[in-house]
C-alpha cells in the first residue's frame, strides 16, 4: 500500500459510494431497493461529513432518479444513480435514450441484481438491458474491484460520451471486505454544454437518427475500451473457462485449493460489450468451454450462437442449474470435484422463519379492520390487490389479507381494471412511498371509474421496508384525491390503532358497500422509525 492509499472496511454497496465520491461525483440520486439501498445511504453519510457542495436526493421513483442524474450530468457534474434491478425497468425510457444523447459530466448507474431472489420478484439480469441500450457495463467481483471500477467509470463515461452501468449482485452488494482507497477529488465542475452542433440532447427524429448512427459507429471504440478490463489467458486448450462477476469470485476461490484448475485456459469477463471476435476465437480454440456467470446464460448464449453447442457447459446443459445463484458447491459439481463431507441434517423438520410485521405495527391493525369489515358485510372470500412494502407481509397468516403482489404500483392499476370489468368490491392496497413511486398515475383515473373500487394507502410517511428512508412528500395524499375529482365523502382518513378497531370497521363497512370509488388513507407512524427518532430527523419542519 502506498502512503496515498487508505484501507477501510466496506460493503460492496459502500465501495460504490466511495468510488463515486472519490471520483468527484457531485449528485447522488436513486430510489431505495434491496440490495442497492446502502449505496445511496453511505454516500449521503460521506457527503454530510464533507460539506463541499455535493448532494444526495431520493427520487419519487427510479425514472425520476435517473433523470435527475442525467440533468446533473447535463449541468456539467459527475453523477450517480442507484437502483435495484427491477428499478431499471422503471427507468428504462430514460436509460435507453441517455445512450443516444450521451452525457456531459460522467454518469454512472449502479444496478444491484438479485439472483436467488433474496428480496425481489424476479432474477432478471441487467446485462441484457445494458446490451439492448448499447450502454457499456462493468461487472466487479469483490468490494475492491467495485470501488476501483466505479471510480474509473467516470473517466470512461466522459471519454466514451456514454453512461456506464455498474452491475453488482446481492452477494457482492452485501459482501464486506477491506478496500484500498485513494484520495478524494473535489466535485467536478464542467459547466453546461456550450459546443452542441448536433443538438445531441434534443431527440427529435432528425437529431435522434444522427445520434443513434453515431452510437452505432462508436461501438467498435466502446468494445475496444471495455476489452481492457477483460483478460484472456490461453493455457491447456482442452478446457477453457469463462468467468464473470461472482462466477469469477467463486472460481478464484476454488483455484486456491484446486490448483489443477489453473492449468486450463481462462477468459475473465469484467466488462461488456465483450469483443465478439475474441470470444469466438476462444470458443473455437478450446475443446470444451465452461461458463460461470451470474445469473442468466448471457455470455453462454453468445457462445452457443457461434459454435457447436455440445462443447459449451453452463446453465443450458444443466452443468449449472438454470435458476438461482452460483456458489462454490455448484462449481465443484460442474467440474465433478469431490464434495465436502458435511454434518448430517437434524432429525426434525425445520420450519421456515419468514420475516414478520414488527410487533404493534399499524399495518396489522389495518389488516384486522379490513378483514372484519369484509366479514360483516358478507364477503366470504375477500380479495385485495397488494403491493410492495412491509405490508406485503400481510399475505402471510394470520392476516391472509393480500392476494396479489406483482410490481411497484400494480395494486392500484389492477384494482382499476378489475373494477372496470365488474369485480365488486375491489380493494387495491399500497404504501405511501410506493404510491408516490407508481400509484399516483392510477389515482388520476379513479374518480371517473364507475365501479366499487377502493384504494387504500397505508401511509406511514416513510419508506419502511428498505430501512426507513424519507418519502418524497407527506400529508398531501387526500389533497391529491380531491384534485383528481374525488368528493370529500369519498376520501377517508383512518388511524390504525387497536382502540380504533370498532370505529374503523364500521367506517370500512360503509365504504366497501358504497358502489363507487373511494380513497382510504390508513395513517400512522412506522413504529421502528418512530423509535429511532427518524420523523424528527427527516421532517424537521413537521
Amino acid at each position, binding site marked *: 500500500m502506498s502512503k496515498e492509499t487508505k484501507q477501510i472496511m466496506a460493503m460492496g454497496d459502500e465501495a460504490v459510494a466511495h468510488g463515486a465520491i472519490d471520483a468527484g461525483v457531485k449528485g447522488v440520486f436513486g430510489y431505495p431497493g434491496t440490495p442497492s439501498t446502502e449505496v445511496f445511504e453511505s454516500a449521503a453519510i460521506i457527503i454530510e461529513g464533507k460539506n463541499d457542495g455535493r448532494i444526495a436526493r431520493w427520487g419519487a421513483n427510479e425514472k425520476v432518479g435517473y433523470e435527475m442524474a442525467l440533468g446533473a450530468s447535463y449541468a456539467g457534474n459527475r453523477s450517480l444513480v442507484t437502483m435495484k434491478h427491477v428499478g431499471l425497468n422503471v427507468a428504462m425510457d430514460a436509460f435507453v435514450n441517455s445512450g443516444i444523447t450521451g452525457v456531459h459530466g460522467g454518469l454512472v448507474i449502479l444496478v444491484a441484481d438479485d439472483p436467488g431472489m433474496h428480496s425481489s420478484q424476479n432474477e432478471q439480469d441487467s446485462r441484457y438491458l445494458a446490451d439492448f441500450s448499447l450502454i457499456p457495463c462493468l461487472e466487479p467481483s469483490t468490494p475492491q474491484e467495485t470501488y476501483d471500477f466505479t471510480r474509473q467509470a467516470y473517466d470512461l463515461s466522459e471519454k466514451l460520451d456514454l453512461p456506464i452501468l455498474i452491475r453488482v449482485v446481492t452477494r457482492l452488494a*452485501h459482501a*464486506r*471486505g477491506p478496500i484500498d482507497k485513494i484520495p478524494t477529488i473535489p466535485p467536478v465542475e464542467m459547466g453546461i454544454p456550450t459546443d452542441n452542433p448536433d443538438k445531441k440532447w434534443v431527440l427529435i427524429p432528425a437529431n435522434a437518427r444522427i445520434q443513434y448512427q453515431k452510437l452505432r459507429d462508436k461501438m467498435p471504440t466502446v468494445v475496444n475500451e471495455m476489452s481492457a478490463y477483460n483478460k484472456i489467458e490461453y493455457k491447456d486448450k482442452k478446457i477453457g473457462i469463462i468467468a464473470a462477476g461472482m462466477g469469477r469470485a467463486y472460481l478464484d476461490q476454488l483455484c486456491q485449493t484446486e490448483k489443477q484448475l489453473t492449468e486450463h485456459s481462462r477468459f475473465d469477463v469484467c466488462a461488456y460489450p465483450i469483443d465478439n471476435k475474441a470470444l469466438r476465437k476462444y470458443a473455437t480454440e478450446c475443446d470444451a468451454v465452461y461458463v460461470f456467470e451470474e445469473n442468466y446464460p448471457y455470455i453462454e448464449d453468445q457462445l452457443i450462437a457461434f459454435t457447436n453447442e455440445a462443447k459449451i457447459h453452463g446453465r443450458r446443459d444443466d452443468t449449472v442449474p438454470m435458476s438461482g445463484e452460483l*456458489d462454490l458447491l455448484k462449481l465443484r459439481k460442474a467440474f465433478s470435484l469431490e464434495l465436502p463431507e*458435511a*454434518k448430517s441434517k437434524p432429525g426434525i423438520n425445520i420450519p421456515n*422463519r419468514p420475516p414478520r410485521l414488527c410487533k404493534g405495527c399499524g399495518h396489522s391493525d389495518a389488516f384486522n379492520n379490513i378483514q372484519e369489515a369484509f366479514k360483516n358485510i358478507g364477503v366470504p372470500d375477500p380479495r385485495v390487490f397488494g403491493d410492495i412494502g412491509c405490508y406485503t407481509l400481510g399475505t402471510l397468516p394470520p392476516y391472509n389479507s393480500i392476494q396479489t403482489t406483482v410490481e411497484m404500483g400494480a395494486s392500484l392499476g389492477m384494482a382499476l381494471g378489475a373494477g372496470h370489468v365488474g369485480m365488486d368490491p375491489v380493494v387495491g392496497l399500497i404504501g405511501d412511498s410506493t404510491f408516490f413511486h407508481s400509484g399516483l398515475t392510477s389515482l388520476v383515473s379513479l374518480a371517473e371509474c364507475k365501479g366499487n373500487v377502493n384504494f387504500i394507502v397505508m401511509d406511514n410517511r416513510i419508506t419502511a421496508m*428498505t430501512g426507513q428512508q424519507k418519502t418524497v412528500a407527506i400529508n398531501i395524499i387526500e389533497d391529491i384525491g380531491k384534485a383528481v375529482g374525488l368528493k370529500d365523502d369519498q376520501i377517508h382518513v383512518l388511524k390504525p390503532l387497536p382502540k380504533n378497531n370498532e370505529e374503523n370497521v364500521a367506517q370500512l363497512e360503509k365504504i366497501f358497500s358504497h358502489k363507487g370509488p373511494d380513497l382510504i388513507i390508513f395513517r400512522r407512524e412506522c413504529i421502528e422509525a418512530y423509535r429511532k427518532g427518524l420523523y424528527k430527523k427527516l421532517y424537521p419542519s413537521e
Partner: protein
Amino acid sequence: MTKVLDKAQGIIVAGVGGQGAITLAQLILGAAWKSNYHCLQSEVHGMSQRGGAVNAHIVFDSEPVTSPTIMEGSADVLIGMEPLETLRYIHMVKKDGHIISSTSPLINMSTYPDESRVLAAIKEIEGVHLVDTDDVSKQLKNRHAGNVILLGMASTFLPMEHDLWNSIFEERFQIKGEKVIQKNIEAFAFGRNLINT
C-alpha cells in the same frame, strides 16, 4: 504473530433478525482484518428487522479470499444464537466442525417445533457446545452478554490471538464507554472458560 493458515476458515453466524447476528459477524471480521488475514463477510439483509432468519458468513485466510460465502458442508465453526436457527444451518458445517449454540429459544412463530425436540436434536450433534445464554446473561447481570459469550466460546476454535479480541471490543464499544467495554470483555472471558475448562 499471526498464525499462517493452511486453508481458508469459514464461520457462520445464525440468528433471528434483531438478535445481533450481523454485529457479531462484524466483530469476527474485524478480528480477522486486524490479524492481517485476507477476509470477506457476506450478509443477507433487507427485511431482516422483522424477525426472520438471518445469517452471515465470514471467510478469512492467509491467501487472498474472493468468495464471501461458505460452501455447504465446509464451515469450520457455526455460531447459533438460537437453537432452531443453529439446526437450520447444520448441513453447512463440515463433518469435524464445531458448533456453538445458545439453547434459549426465540419463539415468534406458530410452527415452532416442540422445545424439547429441538434441544434433543441439537444435543445429538457431534462437536456441539451449548450454553443457555438467557440464564448466563442473568448470572452476569448483563442483558446483552449472550452473543459475546458465544463469541468467547467460538474464539477457542479460531486462530486469532487472545489479546486481539479485547482490542476489538475497545474499538467497537468505545463510544458506549469503559463500562460497556469491560462488560463485554468479562462476557467473552466467561465464554472462553466454558470451553477451556
